[in-house]
């Protein structure tokens, strides 16, 4: 079965978006030969990232390596800047009035904050699933198809919708009611619909900001199973408050922490998940993962 969608001319969606007549130089794609070909996704390298809301520094000096085709979990107490950080990775943070980010975020070899880079292009390649499921008030079919369509997809839409819904483990439940509204699904189904529409535009990286925190345990389990499948094709980054979830599904874990109130959040420790949960190096990490606070 075809892993990347291909239109009539044999171009993948990634190649189509490269040809899209957007303003600005194509710095993000030059030299980026691996995008759109084969199974491996790109990893991300973050260097000295700080995020601000106006003059308030919310996140400071994060250096982290998000490895390709792996699941990285970001844990930490509330208010440590995890959500702010993850929104910097697909340039959604700057959408808020007065918010900005400084530093270097590399997708593959290219800095997505580089001069002349179009954030709209970035957001197709780095998808995001939010905490509260936010399907569009359109039909299930349209929910999945819309993103692909505006990004110039000219291939078999029915096939793309089915493939995306299958990858999100939702196809069997909705295949008979594709024309019904996406809002009529349960919370867990809505979240999987959001995952499906994110997959339909063929990102390299999928960011998830507490995707299961608003869902029941059964839906949570289904989404965790989906993530295990997703990492074969994509790089996954997940913010979660649920430490057992982080321990279950992730390969790497980053712990965010704030020392005093009003300080910016920082990445306190980062390591392979097994090591983070059994033998963390720093005291605060150990206190958090053993449940002494949080």
């Amino acid at each position, binding site marked *: 079965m075809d892993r990347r969608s291909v239109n009539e001319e044999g171009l993948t969606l990634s190649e189509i*978006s490269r040809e899209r007549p957007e303003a600005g130089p194509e710095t993000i794609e030059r030299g980026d030969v691996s995008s759109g070909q084969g199974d491996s996704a790109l990893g991300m390298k973050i260097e000295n990232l700080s995020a601000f809301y106006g003059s308030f520094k919310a996140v400071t000096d994060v250096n982290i390596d998000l490895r390709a085709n792996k699941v990285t979990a970001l844990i930490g107490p509330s208010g440590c800047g995890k959500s702010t950080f993850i929104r910097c990775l*697909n340039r*959604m943070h700057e*959408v808020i*009035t007065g918010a900005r980010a400084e530093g270097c975020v590399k997708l593959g070899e290219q800095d997505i904050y580089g001069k002349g880079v179009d954030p*709209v*292009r*970035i*957001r*197709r*390649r780095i*998808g*995001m699933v*939010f905490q*509260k499921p*936010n*399907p*569009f*008030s*359109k039909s299930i079919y349209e929910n999945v198809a*819309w*993103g692909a369509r*505006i*990004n110039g997809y000219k291939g078999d839409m029915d096939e793309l919708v089915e493939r995306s819904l299958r990858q999100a483990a939702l196809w069997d439940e909705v295949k008979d009611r594709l024309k019904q509204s996406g809002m009529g699904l349960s919370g867990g189904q809505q979240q999987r619909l*959001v995952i499906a*529409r*994110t997959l339909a*535009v063929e990102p390299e990286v999928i960011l998830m900001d507490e995707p299961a925190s608003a869902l029941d345990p059964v839906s949570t389990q289904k989404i965790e199973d989906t993530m295990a499948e997703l990492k074969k094709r994509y790089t996954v980054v997940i913010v979660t408050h649920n430490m057992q979830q982080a321990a279950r599904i992730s390969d790497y874990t980053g712990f965010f922490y704030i020392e005093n109130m009003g300080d910016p959040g920082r990445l306190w420790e980062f390591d392979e998940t097994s090591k983070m949960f059994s033998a963390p190096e720093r005291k605060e990490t150990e206190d958090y993962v053993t449940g002494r606070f949080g």
Partner: protein
Amino acid sequence: MVTRSGAQKSTQKGDPEGAVFKPPTGRRHVWDRVFSVLLLAATFVGLVVLAILLADVSWDGVPRLSWNFITSFSSVIPENSGIYPALLGSLWLLLLTTIVSVPLGIGAAVYLEEYAADTWLTRLVEINISNLAGVPSIIYGLLGLGIFVNLLGPITGGQSLISGALTLSLLILPVIIIAGREALRSISDSVREGGMALGATKWEVIWGHLLPMALPGTLTGAILALSRAIGETAPLIVVGAATYITFAPDGPLSRYSALPIQIYYWISQPQPGFQAAAAAGIVVLMAVLVLSNSVAIYLRNRYQTRA
């Protein structure tokens, strides 16, 4: 717990003696019932007065209605007077005003809500749009006279339908803008975020999601605004709508009359025949309003289920 007399009173769980909490017998339930009756009366007063007015007008007007009435022109003889040119004039005005004001109003609402930065200038514009919605319509008539009839006379043809329509458009534009903004504001930001996270431009999110979602609310505001425009008399008189006209309008540059103006002219005539004609004219005006509202509400409901 200290009572009014100052003595200490303790309550058992559930307060069986009613020592502290007053049970809802007597006064509390009575007031509940009194208010529900008062509020019902408030609703009915408005509706009953309206119903009486409509009944009275219909009583006088319906007998006078006939195909002849609708297709005849005005005449010095009351019995021969018809509403044809005024009816056509109002329909033309309705069409032209809709074409001008609805796209402009929605466009302005989208810009102000989605694109404009939160500067002092934007806030100034916001405040003034609310003020403009309350300006008396005759002022708009004077504005229309100065700009559309005189200044732009060569283009608009002076005292023409298009001048009248443009004047009415200015009049109802603030209302449509406010309705559009409220409708857009009511859409949660999660929709915008969801769209942008898929690599959509701002316009794609607006066109694909926000406008379809905002359309029902905006159309409701637009319907109300257009209904008001159809009933306006003073600004149209100022920009040159005729009270007595012997031909039907033949295009946007034509001279014209309108239903409220015709009714106003007939009412001010002494002959009782004209009073009856005026009543019939009011019935026709009501019918036009109900018809155009129904079409608009139908369109709104269609968009509501689709989006």
